[in-house]
């Protein structure tokens, strides 16, 4: 895909580019109009879209610009948002990570400040600045149909478990950063995290992990999330640390308690 783009970009200063682009733009506007006129629900009309972008801009100026700059160009404490795309905004704002509560090492997941409509507006505004990854639609997220849990588990253990732990419970990174737990995270947000690489997370492009593989990973995470506690209390699924703690508290506590009782008995 990248090679194709490179090949295309060689022609970007060609004489025919400008008229071609004009035709393309007219065509796309025409199609958009006809589609928007026909279907009432999805794709927004240009007017609606620009209204949404305007609303997003107002929200952005009030809530985000003090750190990210008046034109989302970034500042001393926050990165530029030009080109991060709608997916990034949707992930960061809809999970409550943005706006940040404080300037700690990492934005925490918390109750979202903006409602769904406002998030959409903010995403539309940021996406209007420059193209970037889009919010995946419902049809792209049908992991139950398109994913395979076993393959997803294998991919998860190869690419994700090193930070998020074997059961997606999260884990520690350096200097107070951490990979959060993936339990109870919306499939959409897991997908967005993979394509945008928030905070310390790398970007898993569609070339490294294809969209189907991403859905497999999501399917495995959801399977792990809904798996009944097969062996009894799960103890946080973080490995031997909590098991050791339970042995030294409950296990040995009970046994030493019984020993004391036995020594008092039958005098």
């Amino acid at each position, binding site marked *: 895909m990248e090679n194709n783009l490179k090949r295309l970009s060689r022609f970007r200063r060609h004489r025919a580019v400008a008229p071609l682009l004009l035709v393309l733009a007219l065509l796309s506007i025409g199609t958009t109009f006809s589609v928007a006129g026909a279907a009432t629900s999805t794709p927004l009309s240009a007017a609606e879209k620009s209204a949404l972008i305007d609303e997003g801009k107002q929200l952005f100026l009030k809530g985000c610009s003090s750190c990210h700059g008046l034109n989302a160009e970034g500042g001393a404490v926050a990165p530029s948002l030009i080109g991060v795309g709608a997916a990034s905004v949707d992930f960061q704002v809809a999970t409550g990570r943005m706006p940040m509560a404080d300037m700690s090492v990492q934005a925490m997941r918390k109750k979202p400040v903006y409602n769904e409509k406002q998030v959409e507006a903010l995403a539309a505004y940021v996406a209007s600045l420059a193209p970037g990854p889009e919010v995946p639609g419902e049809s792209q997220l049908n992991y139950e149909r398109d994913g395979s849990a076993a393959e997803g588990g294998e991919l998860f253990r190869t690419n994700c*478990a090193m930070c998020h732990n074997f059961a997606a419970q999260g884990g520690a990174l350096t200097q107070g950063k951490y990979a959060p737990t993936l339990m109870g995270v919306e499939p959409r947000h897991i997908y967005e995290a993979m394509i945008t690489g928030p905070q310390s997370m790398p970007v898993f492009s569609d070339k490294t992990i294809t969209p189907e593989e991403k859905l497999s990973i999501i399917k495995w995470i959801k399977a792990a999330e809904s798996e009944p506690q097969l062996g009894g209390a799960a103890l946080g699924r973080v490995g031997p640390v909590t098991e050791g703690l339970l042995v*030294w508290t409950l296990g040995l506590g009970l*046994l030493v308690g*019984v020993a004391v009782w036995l020594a008092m*008995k039958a005098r």
Partner: protein
Amino acid sequence: MTARERIAGNVANYVDERTGAAKWMKKNLTKVFPDHWSFLLGEIALYSFIILLLSGTFLTFWFDPSQREVIYEGNYEPLEGLKMSAAYASTLHISFEVRGGLLMRQIHHWAALIFMAAIVVHLMRVYFTGAFRKPREFNWIIGVGLLTLGIVEGFLGYSLPDDLLSGTGIRIAEAIIQALPVVGSYLAFFAFGGAFPGEAFIPRIYTVHVLLLPGAFLALITVHLMLVWYQKHTQYPGPGRTEKNVVGYPLLPVYMAKAGGFFFIVFGVTAFLGAVASINPIWLYGPYTPGQISAGSQPDWYMGWLDGLVRMSPPLETHAFGHTISWNILIPGLIVPGILFTGMALYPFIESWITGDKREHHLLDRPRNAPNRTALGVMSLTFMLVALINGGNDIIATTFHLTINQIMWFSRIAIFVLPPIAFVITKRLCLSLQRADRELVLHGRETGRLVMMPHGEFVEVHEPISAEKAWLLTQHEQNPALALEEHDSSGVRRPKALKNKLRARMSKAHAVAVPKATAEDLKQIEHH
């Protein structure tokens, strides 16, 4: 004589005529054991071992110790169709398809953790009460051997299922073997039958786990118990208890009933844990492949301190003559544990060298009456605890919102600073307790009753303590430090002066005590 008694008598007679067991039984079934809860700690370890043998045997019926690659076709859907070793697949089979298999696996693993924990608390009891002193030094060494074997045996068991966590542990074990200078890489190749992971390691450690080490355990435990039998159990001091007698209950019926009942209680607690709490959910870890790792990979608790030491060690390496020496693994993985365990094994001899005490001891010390020993024990435990905490630094970091770097630096400093502080505090505490004992003997118990004297002064009434209590608080010996002069009477320096100086110094530190209350002290007080 009823018919039943006659039959029992006939059976007993039949056996006795052929084995001569009656005399032995008569003598030994009335053998007396002292009764104290802390004497049951070792029994927890013994019973856990029996549970391990039974549950382990059950697991061997289905476990396939092979690294042959198979494709999973069992019940657990999220692993369906994956390539894995037969070892891992058979562990999944035990967990999901064998009736009671998961419960048995969990009982086996919980029993292993309880076994090790019970060994450690038993060791603490023996250490802090001075039960390792003559004539029990050999039994102490056997105990240290059992602890060491337990760590190895536990680690091998943790490695057998060949899940992602197992494999990670084996990888670290391989790294520790490789860290041995010169022979390391040869040894690793020998152990793994080639390059890591190979196909030989799991079959090999299986034989060691189910045959060699359990055999060694059985032999050592037998000797351990026979020595207790032969040397008789130690007892806590008290009125009527001397170095020459044992006060307690006969083996039959009292002790037998208690011990037998306790076995079932230990089994019950282990089965309870196995039934209600998940341990090592191997199906979530997935099969081992060297390319994968999980965040928060930890060993079981009894190796957590070792992992903690490795985690805190700075990245030190030297390169010489084409060899790399990885001090960052060699020091925390082999040298420090080697020093710790050798020191522990030799401690009875070191203490008797320091105190010059070569007599037999069957009466236990109250920990406060041996401040130096108690302080040294608390110091060692503090060291282990700091290392153990650092072993779980990632889990602690995410749980308490700390940074892993802070915890690592805390441990790096604390491992040197906290143990000596613990030593000083413990020693002071012991001496304070001795002082409190002395006060109690001399001035009696505070009753909380205030009395106004005729001249208006308020005094609190003190009641004298019972004779038994007073005996308990004053029965211990307080031996002076060894007198080892550096120079003899004619002013000539003795040979080995430096060694003697060290010995005298340590002996002096060991003999520090608050003088216990004596009869004269009491008389003087009464006189006032």
